[in-house]
């Protein structure tokens, strides 16, 4: 089922990331990450804390906080290398080309600015609208994200709204500049489950209406299953598996993906008080990554080679996996 209209006209992906590496001081937290996002596609970047998924998202627009910086790699958006852009164009790209939605809208919104004035500022900057036009457009965005009583919301400060309403406002703000890609970093993690369902439905609807591409950064495989077309699984700073969501859920190949799926309480349909298959140990800290495969110390199928040699990524149509076993099973 291909919900995503493929970009057949140009053939080039909307976003192309190649060999991205980000370091904080001398410690790499993202290491050799490459992926593409097509127009209209929802791609999930899945991982646990410390996997580097958030930093990967932030680095798309050089938003990694100090002292972090991109130390290698290339980011091409709409055919242009982001590094070659002057600061002025980069600023235009933030919001105008790529929109961001963060986990905690309470922290991302200016506490002393009304939602209306934030939206109007975005619309004037990125769309060049007059004040009156921007106001009308702001109102229509608030109703588009289904905020109740948009007229009244225009004058509200963020703290007057519930978490779900703030996240709707955040989505409106992120999209008002007319971006082609929305990076949503754990957009529903701080929300209650019934509100989360509403926000996810909203994102899918806007994707369909606007032909928006979404890079969804999340730790929750349930959300991936529900909204993503394709998933990239990150572990210890690198992508260990990429596949369509159907394939990832139905036939995961990397032992880490398998273990993640098995240990999700959602996945294990079973009797109550049943033990879950757990992964031993913990995600290694950046800077303390093992020499061979970074998952080897926790991997139930690891053998000698895994601890000394870093597995190369095996690419094939529709996906890739970085595991010695996956290669052998195929041959």
């Amino acid at each position, binding site marked *: 089922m291909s919900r995503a209209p493929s970009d057949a006209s140009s053939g080039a992906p909307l976003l192309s990331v190649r060999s991205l590496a980000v370091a904080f001081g001398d410690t790499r937290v993202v290491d050799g990450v490459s992926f593409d996002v097509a127009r209209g596609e929802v791609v999930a970047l899945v991982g*646990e804390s410390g996997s580097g998924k958030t930093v990967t998202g932030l680095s798309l627009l050089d938003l990694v906080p100090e002292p972090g910086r991109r130390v290698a790699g290339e980011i091409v958006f709409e055919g242009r290398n982001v590094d070659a852009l002057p600061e002025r164009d980069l600023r235009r790209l933030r919001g105008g080309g790529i929109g961001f939605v963060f986990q905690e809208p309470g922290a991302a919104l200016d506490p002393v600015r009304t939602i209306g004035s934030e939206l109007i500022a975005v619309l004037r900057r990125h769309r060049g609208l007059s004040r009156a036009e921007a106001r009308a457009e702001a109102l229509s965005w608030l109703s588009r994200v289904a905020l109740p009583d948009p007229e009244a919301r225009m004058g509200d400060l963020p703290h007057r709204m519930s978490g779900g309403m703030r996240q709707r406002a955040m989505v409106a703000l992120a999209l008002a500049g007319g971006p082609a890609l929305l990076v949503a970093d754990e957009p529903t993690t701080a929300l209650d489950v019934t509100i989360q369902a*509403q926000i996810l439905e909203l994102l899918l609807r806007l994707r369909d209406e606007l032909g928006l591409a979404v890079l969804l950064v999340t730790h929750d495989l349930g959300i991936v299953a529900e909204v993503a077309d394709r998933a990239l699984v990150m572990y210890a700073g690198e992508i260990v598996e990429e596949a369509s969501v159907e394939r990832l859920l139905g036939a995961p190949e990397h032992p880490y993906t398998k273990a993640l799926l098995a240990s999700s309480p959602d996945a294990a349909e079973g009797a109550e008080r049943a*033990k879950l298959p757990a*992964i031993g140990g913990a995600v290694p800290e950046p800077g303390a990554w093992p020499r061979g495969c970074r998952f080897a110390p926790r991997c139930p199928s690891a053998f000698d080679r895994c601890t000394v040699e870093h597995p190369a990524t095996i690419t094939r149509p529709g996906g890739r996996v970085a595991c010695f076993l996956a290669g052998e099973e195929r041959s």
Partner: protein
Amino acid sequence: MTGAAPSTNVRPEPLLSVRGLAKAFPSSRTLLWGGTRREVRAVSDVSFDLAAGETLALVGESGSGKSTTARLVLRLLAPDRGEVRFDGRDWLSLPLSALNRARRDVGVVFQDPGSSLNPRMNVETIVGEPLAIHRIGSSAERRERVLALLDAVGLPPQAAKRRPGEFSGGQRQRIAIARALATEPKLVVLDEPVSALDVSIRAQVLNLLLELQETTPSRPAYLFIGHDLGVVKHLADRTAVMYLGRIVEEGPTRDVLGSPRHPYTALLLASRPGLARRGDPDASLRRKVAGEPASPGSPPPGCPFHPRCPRGRRLPGRFVRTLGSSLEKRAGGSPVTTLSPPPGETFPPYSRNGLAWIHLARRTS
């Protein structure tokens, strides 16, 4: 199953019995924004029982009152109304000295072990502190017990001399669990103990909790506060679903999650992003239930869920506002609370099926 003695319907007195618990907080909204001072009814009329060795999950979203209920049971807060009996005693009227002695029977694990463990103490002091407070054993015996506890939660003996800051989130939660079990309590209150943990660590800690419940000699009962129904399913014998300060459905976990009776429970289940993929029938239920919970400062009259309820919206207003509720037996035995019509009225026929679902909090007087 059935022993030599003929089984009776009289259950032994539960370990923990809560009746009509209520707590309101003065609203802190200032007058600056034109708000008026009101009270927020965090918990209104909550009743439940927890048997020895059993696990009861209180589930709900933010504002449902689940954590406040836990705090009331722990006597970290004083309720406005209601009764709590614990281990055969009137827990709320215990004088402070007796309460402090009795606290050795109750352990607690909070959501964030980063802030609930003293960062300046080493692990041995943290885990051994409840033993020291209750003067259990000599200091050498206590040290030995701490090492045994650390071993039980899967931490090496060297951990004893280190501080919480040197551990990962999952390990810190193991320390918190060791501390909670140190005095071999009869009840452990678990307030979102795995919510802050990564998926792979969450499964380890859940398994540990299940295992320790069986291996700890006191066989503690767990009062588990959570919002993730997947987690609840693995841990709890019984589940009570809370909404705006009331329990709207309660029963064996298998029944509550397998065949929910209250539309809010059904909504919670349908909202959980599932590995069963999109396009599922749940999506239509989610679309039907719009909106957000009302503020606990101004709960709607009648069933607190009715403004969002796909069935409740179809009912004539007088029903929604005045519905009472009653205890009903689920097929198979345990009581669930369901709805009864207002005195002197019968339900309109078209909604009778739906009404079996809708329920108001049990009215205890």
